[in-house]
């Protein structure tokens, strides 16, 4: 029994050992990685990039997996003064790839040391680039861009200073990123690293500068506010003036027309009368008489005192006499 048991265990152990060694001959390369085989720590052969199942010597050869994908590098934010002495916080990120796994493996061995190398190189390139340029170069990108202007400020004159205007630039953010990338890429190439892109993720004012920035923003705004108010008052005054003008124009034009019409009317009436009364000698005579009569009717009211001479036409039939009531034609 004891003997059999020992044998059993030896057999099982042997099977496991063989199995283990056999399994140790196989390794899988994932789609996302490449593999460098090392023998006692020394790389052997070319890196294996083809994904799938591969063979190696068991025990003495080791598998070193190296990522094939684009990897991230997220720089820690750094406070840098720009060329125009504004302190800003710059946060950078980069995408990179291990393009030469062998060199990479020999020089850096793993990703952690790669990250710290990236931090060194890209961090210092960023610093250099930022310190070489004015803040506006880091903020803006497109040299040609003309800003949209607020309808309300459209007719604002040049006196408004920086409001609604983008300060001109020479290079711009993308150019500076490009600069960092080119310089960094050159230095990283010797580590077997291919730099795809470097970007300034965040550019913010240093908290110490913020107070001044806010102050400037406030003064800019109050300038605009004052402008609006003054525009309002100016426009109101203009409208009030227009009102005066229009009123005077309307009223005087009306007066002129009224006078003209009335004048015409009087002239026309006068013409009609004159024509009628001068159509023949009788007419003028008769008109005078009629008018006198009409005038009597008006003048002789119950308040009037009438002194009648016996010599008037009225009494002519009673006693021949004569009188001359103002315009009345004598009828003697």
């Amino acid at each position, binding site marked *: 029994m004891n003997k059999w048991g020992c044998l059993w265990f030896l057999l099982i152990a042997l099977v496991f050992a063989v199995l283990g060694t056999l399994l140790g001959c196989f390794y899988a390369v994932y789609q996302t990685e490449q593999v460098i085989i090392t023998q006692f720590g020394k790389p052997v052969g070319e890196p294996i990039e083809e994904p799938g199942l591969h063979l190696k010597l068991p025990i003495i050869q080791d598998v070193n997996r190296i990522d094939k994908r684009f990897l991230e590098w997220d720089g820690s934010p750094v406070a840098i003064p720009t060329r125009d002495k504004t302190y800003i916080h710059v946060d950078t990120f980069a995408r990179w790839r291990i393009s030469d796994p062998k060199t990479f493996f020999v020089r850096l061995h793993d990703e952690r040391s790669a990250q710290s190398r990236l931090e060194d190189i890209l961090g210092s390139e960023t610093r250099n680039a930022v310190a070489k340029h004015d803040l506006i170069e880091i903020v803006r990108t497109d040299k040609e861009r003309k800003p949209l202007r607020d309808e309300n400020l459209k007719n604002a004159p040049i006196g408004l200073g920086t409001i609604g205007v983008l300060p001109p630039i020479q290079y711009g953010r993308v150019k500076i990123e490009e600069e960092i990338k080119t310089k960094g890429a050159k230095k990283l190439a010797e580590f077997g690293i291919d730099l795809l892109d470097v970007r300034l993720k965040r550019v913010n004012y240093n908290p110490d500068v913020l107070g001044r920035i806010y102050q400037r923003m406030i003064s800019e705004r109050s300038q605009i506010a004052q402008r609006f108010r003054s525009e309002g008052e100016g426009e109101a005054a203009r409208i009030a003036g227009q009102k005066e003008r229009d009123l005077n124009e309307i009223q005087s034009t009306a007066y002129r027309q009224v006078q003209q019409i009335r004048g015409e009317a009087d002239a026309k009436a006068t013409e009609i009368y004159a024509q009628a009364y001068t159509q023949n000698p009788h007419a003028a005579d008769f008109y005078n008489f009629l008018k006198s009569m009409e005038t009597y009717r008006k003048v002789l009211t119950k308040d009037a005192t*009438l002194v009648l001479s016996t010599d008037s036409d009225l009494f002519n039939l009673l006693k021949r006499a004569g009188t001359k009531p103002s315009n009345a034609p004598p009828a003697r």
Partner: protein
Amino acid sequence: MMDEPPELQDLKIPHIPLRLIASIAAVLLLLALAWTSCYTVQAESEGVVLRFGKFLKTVEPGLHFKLPFSIDHVTVLPTRRQLKLEFGFVTPGYTNPYQPGKDAREERSMVTGDLNAALVEWVVQYRIEDPKQYLFDVRNPDQTLRDLSEAAMREVIGDRTVDEVITIGRQDIEISALARMQELAKRYMLGIRVDQVQLKNVNPPAEVQASFNEVNKAQQDRENAINIANGDYNEAVPRARGQADQMIRAAEGYRFKRVNEAQGDVASFNAILAEYVKAPEITRTRLYLETMGDVLPATGEKIIIDDSMRNLLPILPLNPKPLEKR
């Protein structure tokens, strides 16, 4: 491995459990086999199958079988789901671990093209378009998208004035940022399609908010002043126009009246004249007497004097009544 320990015990409890252990092991093995050789892909997702780490195929939603253990490896990606990233703010209850940022305050603070500070919050909607690229070409594509989206947004904001950012340029910013993000996502081979960029709250920093409000107020004041002035104008001018028309119409009326009356007078005169011409003397006398007859009874005081009497004055004042009446 397990060479030495069971020596003594094995003697005492020999044969019976060996079979049991073997059958239990076999059942467990079968269960594990079954468990690891089937999987489901949800309706909104796609599965990517790797065999020994090598890409094999992508599979559609449903129940699928694969080689057991880790020979085949399946990654399920929600390719049909619209995913969302939030910048500068956090909406609780998210499922996508990349949706909120690490530091919302840092994310939203930006510098505009006229060197003002602004707080910008936005949302990016995206979808996994190419699962192969998404899985194999970039590590951490979602985080990469976050980073590039921040960079792109700042690039766009950096080329705009604070007025554009806060008020008039919002749509323009969304369009430009979207274009820039799509371009970068393509360049980084993320396998992601950026569908939409939406600006949320965009504000000046709290410290200067008051002065921005002041500008709005001033703008209202301006409109108000102009409205009041226009009100005054509108109150006076149309009325004056109406009144002017009234005066002109009245004058025209006067013209009609004058002319018509004149014509009427003349017509009546002409008619009478025609008769008058036939017998002037008698007509005159008749008219004179008729007039007197009408007028005299209504007259107040009547004094009849003889023609020979030359001096009236002594008489008139003696009669007080008509004077009093007057």
